[in-house]
Every structure is written in C-alpha cells, then in structure tokens.
C-alpha cells in the first residue's frame, strides 16, 4: 500500500515537473509548480534524507545528545522536535529566499524554480542536516571550531574570514533593499520608521510591565504594526506630513547606517529582542497567508519559462544563466549561512539524534518552499511591469517614457499609463526603478493577498508587504551587526585585552563602529551607483554565501571521509563540487568579462575612460572616483573569497588523501558515546 502511494507521488511529481519544464504556452498556472514542488520535497524527505541519515550519518537513536548529557536548563535543553524545528526555521528564514528568486525571475520562471527544487533537496537540505548532526555529535561546536578541529587551522581561519565577509556584504545588500523600498515613498518610510518606537514599546512592556510575556506583548506589537501600515496611508495623504517622510536614497542610507550603529550598541531587550519577536510572528503569519492565498487563487504566471536574458544581457543584473542563476537564487536553494545556525543554538536543543532529519532537512525544505512562493509572486506580474519596477535608470533610461520604450522593445509591452495606475493603486507616486526586489515582491504579494483577502485593499497590502520585509531585514541587520561586533571584539582581544571584553563600553563602541563602517561603505556605494547597486552587491553576496556553503560542505566531506565513509562522501562532495564550479565561474566572469555590466574591472575601466574623456555630468563626475575604486575593490574581494574556498577544498583533499593512505590525521573531535536511558 505504502509503495503504491509513493509511486503515485513520484508519478504526479514527474508529471507536474514535466508540465512545468515543457510547457510553452502564453501562461502557466502556478499550481503546476506548487504540485511539482510538494512531490519533490515529499520524495526527497521520505527517501533521500532518510537514506543519508541512516546510512551515511548513521544517526543513533540510543546515543545521548549533548542536550541530554549536559542539560543545564539554559543553553543545553532537550526540547521537543517540533519546537526546535520552529526555532531553527525562524533562525534560518530571512529575506534572502524572498529576494533571490525575485531577481532570478529575469531569466524566466523555469531556471530559478528548478534550481530552488534540485539545489535544496540535494544540496541545501543535506548541508544543513549534516552540519547539524556533526555539531550535535561535537557538543554543539561552531562551524569554525569544527573546521579547526577536524581539518586544521587553515579551515578555521577561512571559516572566520568567510563569516565576517558574508555578514558585511549581506547587511549592505539588505540595507540597500530597504533603502530602495523607502526611497521617495512617504507611506513606506513613515511605516518603517514607526516600527522602531513600536519595538521599543514592546521591549519596555516585556522588561518592565509584564516580564517575559512574549505572546501578549507580540500580539499588542503586531496590532500596532498593522495600525502603522494604515497610519502610513494617512501620512501619505497629508501634505505637510508627506513632505517630512519623503527622503532620498542618501539620507535613507545615512539613517540605516546610524540606526544600525545605535541598535548594535543598545541593550538587546530594548530593540533587538522585541523586534525579533514581532518579525518572527509576522514572518510565520505572512508565509502561511501567502501559501494559502496562492493555493486558493491559483494564479497564472505571465513570465515566459525562459527569457532572452539568459544570454547575460539582463537589466536587473548582468550575467548569463550559467552561473548567475545559481549565485542569484542563493538562500532558497543552498545557503552557507545556515551552517552557522546549524552549528550554533540548534544542536544544543536536540533531544534525539534522529530529530536532525526533521530539523535540519525539513526546515531547509520549508525555506525552499518560501523561495518558490516568492518566485510565483514575481512571475505572476506582467513581465513588462516586473522589468519596469526592477530595472535601474542607468539601464533602461532615466525617464518613464524611455524606460517603457526600452522594455517594450524587448517584447515585454508596458505603458506609462499602466505603471501610473498601478502605482496609484499601490499608493505610491511611482513604481519605476524600484530596484532591489522588495517592491516588485510587494506588488506580487499585494495582488495575491488582495484577490483572496479583500479586493480594494491593494495599497494596504502593498505597504504591509513592504513593512513585513523591512521589519525582518532590520532584524537581520542589527543581529548581524551584533554578531560581527563579537567577532571583531574577539579579534581585537588579541591586541588589547581591554578591547576584547565583550561588555566594556569603549570596546563595544569601537567594534560596532568598525562593523557598521564596513557594511555602511558598501551600502553607501550601492546607493550612489546609477546602475542601482543591486547589480554589484547581490552577486557578491551570492558568491560569499556559496563560499560559506563550500566551507561547510568541505568540513562535512572531510569528516565523513575520516569516519570511513569515503564510499558515501559524494553526498556532500557532489554539492561541494557544484558550488566550487559555480562560484569559480561567477568570479571568473566578474573579473575577466569585458562587458561592463558583468565585469568589475571592465566597469571600472569604462568609467575611468569616461572620466578621462570628460563625457560625464558634474554630478556623475563627483562620484566616479568612488565608484571606480569600489569596482576594483569588489574584484579583489571576489578573488579573495574564491581563493579561500579553494584553499579549504585543498586542505580537505589533503586530509582525505592522508586517510586513504593510512597516514595519521587529526583525531576525531566527536564527544564519546553515552547510551541514552529513556527517550527524551
């Protein structure tokens, strides 16, 4: 009976995926993608994850986990697996899987969708589960520590540099997404600003009025956030208030940078912790609502399966389908960042080794599902509208007329009137050139949600979506700045004992300022770049994130080989090889390409030539030297990241060779086995 059922799932899945891949009509219904995704996840979870867990990792239900052995009621606590699943998913799911697929939709719906499904089932989920398992076996050690213990100091340093770099670039690119969503939008700006005092209020409630009553405080906070969305609409209609919140990109960037610094220095209970509660509730609620709405509405996707931009001429970011679709989708398929969470808090909560399947593999599957929904929300828009929102003025032309002419010329008809009436319906003055992915995602979400839950509330849903994205981008921003601060303090501690103390105020100020300056620089450059900044920063983020995944998979592969699992090491080695190929190919393109939209150096040279020829306006002239320097810096950064990845891979191969030749290697850092008495 079971066999029949699973054969049926496989058949339906194969049929749906075939339908998605071979469909060549005008539009395709989103249900094809949803059904294909569900079948693929079901089969991946039921068969592949089970096989990896039992045959490759050899999870042992009778072996006591660190949470059981070291239970201290604080960080080591055996916890029910669905609770850990919830916490782990809340930790790994950020704005990445919403933005990546939206940008990757410029290639059409097919390439991104396929990579989200295949990448997650064979790569991302396996990475998360494996690292979670290995860390659980090592008392919850971090990825960096495991790299040092199992491979040697080189791997350890590489993991540290990779983590700091990805953190800085991630925060910069996310900051840019929020800035672009708020630019000259009084409604969005006032709503996002209002989230800050709301979070502080919730923080005070949770500390002073009713300590630790998270549910009631969050309920009050979410109600206030919804009121702020409506209130933003009133601000937007009021002439004087409107002007107060009508900010340009630079002022918003300055605001985000200042905010990031203050948030990193303030005590966590005041701003970070309460806003995180709000963002987690919003995130879970909105994702559920979206999935429900997509299933109820069953929208048609208007984007073609493939667009002509697979050749690399895309307006959102330059670069051909291979390797850039893999770099752009990022977190929805495989994300190195998850390895930091999987080797952080989560392994200390696991009550039984067999739970790693649900928590590691399962959470990433759900994250990938979020990416699929984002892809649907992006591709249900008219392609002309999608490109008009997401293309920078430097690419399609500075005026609305120029932009619609360029975009219609590509075969994606769109008119100024259409864009204007859409903007009016969303309560915005314009939707042209709102790059970064958040606004087009918000338009997509608003059309889905309003068609199911309240037609005529488009503008409210649009700003709800913007607020929702902004709230958890800001959470990632200050949580990331704080983690970066700890790393810098750790580093500074080598030079001065005082600067290494995590609670000393001078040390907090100096290290926070360093971290904020690091991402603030990239954010500022992204804002002044006429090509929108996303074109530069997102690929760099993708490369950094995949680099971290490469390090995690190298550590995993090395440990598997050391444990005598050479035969099965392909489970992590194949995704690793693929990651190495795509990051190296992407870096190569970003360095040697003569197309200034792709190559960092080509772009720097082109701009330098323009400066020399004197063809730039005084405004462009003023920022040109910074842009040129930045492009060259990005080139160096991309090279460093890729070299680090190859060093770690080489180190892993060195260990593997010694194992196969029977030479001594570092001993396993696994904690000794203790038999569990009762199942927790």
């Amino acid at each position, binding site marked *: 009976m079971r066999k029949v059922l699973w054969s049926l799932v496989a058949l339906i899945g194969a049929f749906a995926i075939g339908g998605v891949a071979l469909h060549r009509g005008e539009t395709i219904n989103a249900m094809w993608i949803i059904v294909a995704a569900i079948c693929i996840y079901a089969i991946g979870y039921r068969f592949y994850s089970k096989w990896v867990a039992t045959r490759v990792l050899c999870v042992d239900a009778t072996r006591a986990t660190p949470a059981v052995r070291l239970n201290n*009621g*604080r*960080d080591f*606590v055996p916890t*029910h697996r*669905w*609770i850990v699943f*919830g*916490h782990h998913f809340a*930790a*790994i*799911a*950020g*704005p*990445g899987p919403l933005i990546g697929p939206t940008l990757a939709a410029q290639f059409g719906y097919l390439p991104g969708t396929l990579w989200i499904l295949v990448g997650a089932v064979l790569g991302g989920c396996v990475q998360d589960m494996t690292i979670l398992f290995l860390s659980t076996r090592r008392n919850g050690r971090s990825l960096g520590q495991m790299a040092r213990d199992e491979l040697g100091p080189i791997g350890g340093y590489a993991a540290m540099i990779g983590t700091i770099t990805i953190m800085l670039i*991630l925060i910069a690119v*996310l900051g840019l997404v929020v800035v672009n969503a708020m630019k000259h939008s009084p409604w969005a700006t006032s709503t996002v600003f209002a989230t800050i005092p709301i979070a502080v209020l919730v923080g005070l409630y*949770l*500390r*002073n009025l009713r*300590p*630790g*009553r*998270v*549910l009631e405080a*969050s309920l009050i906070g979410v109600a206030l956030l919804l009121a702020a969305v409506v209130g933003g609409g009133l601000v937007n209609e009021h002439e004087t208030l409107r002007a107060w919140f009508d900010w340009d990109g630079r002022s918003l960037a300055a605001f985000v940078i200042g905010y990031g610094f203050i948030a990193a220095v303030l005590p*966590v*209970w005041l701003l*970070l*912790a309460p806003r*995180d*509660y709000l963002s987690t509730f919003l995130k879970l609620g909105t994702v559920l609502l979206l999935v429900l709405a997509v299933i109820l509405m069953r929208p048609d996707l208007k984007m073609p399966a493939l667009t002509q931009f697979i050749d690399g001429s895309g307006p959102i970011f330059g670069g051909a389908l291979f390797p850039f679709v893999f770099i752009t989708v*990022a*977190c929805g398929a495989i*994300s190195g*960042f*998850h390895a*930091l*969470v999987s080797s*952080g*808090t989560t392994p200390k909560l696991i009550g039984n080794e067999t739970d790693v399947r649900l928590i590691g593999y399962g959470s990433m599957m759900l994250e990938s599902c979020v990416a699929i929904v984002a892809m649907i929300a992006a591709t249900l828009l008219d392609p002309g509208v999608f490109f008009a929102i997401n293309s920078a003025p430097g690419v399609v032309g500075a005026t609305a007329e120029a932009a619609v002419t360029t975009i219609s010329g590509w075969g994606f008809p769109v008119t100024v009137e259409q864009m204007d009436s859409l903007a009016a319906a969303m309560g915005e003055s314009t939707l042209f050139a709102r790059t970064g992915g958040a606004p087009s995602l918000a338009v997509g979400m608003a059309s889905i949600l309003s068609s199911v839950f309240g037609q005529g509330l488009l503008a409210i849903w649009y700003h709800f979506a913007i607020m929702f994205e902004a709230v*958890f981008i800001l*959470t*990632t921003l200050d*949580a*990331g700045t*704080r*983690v970066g601060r*700890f790393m810098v303090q750790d580093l500074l501690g080598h030079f001065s004992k005082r600067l290494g103390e*995590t609670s000393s105020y001078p040390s907090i100020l100096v290290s926070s300022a360093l971290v904020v300056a690091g991402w603030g620089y990239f954010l500022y450059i992204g804002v002044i770049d006429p090509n929108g900044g996303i074109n530069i920063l997102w690929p760099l*983020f993708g490369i950094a*994130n995949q680099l971290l995944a490469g390090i995690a998979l190298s550590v995993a592969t090395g440990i598997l080989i050391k444990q005598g699992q050479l035969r099965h090491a392909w489970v992590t080695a194949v995704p690793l090889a693929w990651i190495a190929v795509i990051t190296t190919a992407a870096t190569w393109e970003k360095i040697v390409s003569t197309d200034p939209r792709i190559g960092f150096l080509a772009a720097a040279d082109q701009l330098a030539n323009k400066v020399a020829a004197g063809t730039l306006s005084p405004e462009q002239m003023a920022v040109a030297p910074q842009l040129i320097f930045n492009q060259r810096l990005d080139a160096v950064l991309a090279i460093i990241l890729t070299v680090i990845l190859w060093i770690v891979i080489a180190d892993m191969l060195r260990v593997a060779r010694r194992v196969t030749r029977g030479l001594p290697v570092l001993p396993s850092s696994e904690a000794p086995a203790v038999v569990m008495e009762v199942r927790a």
Partner: protein
Amino acid sequence: MKARLQSFWRFVRELATDDAYERYLQHHRHTHEDCAPLGRRAFYLRQQQNKWSGVQRCC
C-alpha cells in the same frame, strides 16, 4: 477536543518562549535546591542576553 486545544496552546507558548520562566523554575527546583531562583525580570534579561550573543538570524 478541549485536551487537544490545551496541548496546542502549550505548544504555541513553548514555541514563543512564553513559558520560559515556568520551565526555568521547574528546572531550578530539580537541580539547585540550595539557592533562590532568579526573578521574572532578571531571568528574562539573562535569557535575551544569552540568546543574542550568537548567530540567531540569517539571510
């Protein structure tokens, strides 16, 4: 039905860490009989400090 709702409510509270203090008191009673437990606020502050000193949020 009522039992189900109750267990769902317990699940939601645990997921939201709404019941963290009660769990702490319970743990404390079992293991540290000799010293007085932290108050609600002190526990909440320590819990947040603890939570936000590592990688908790991602891309």
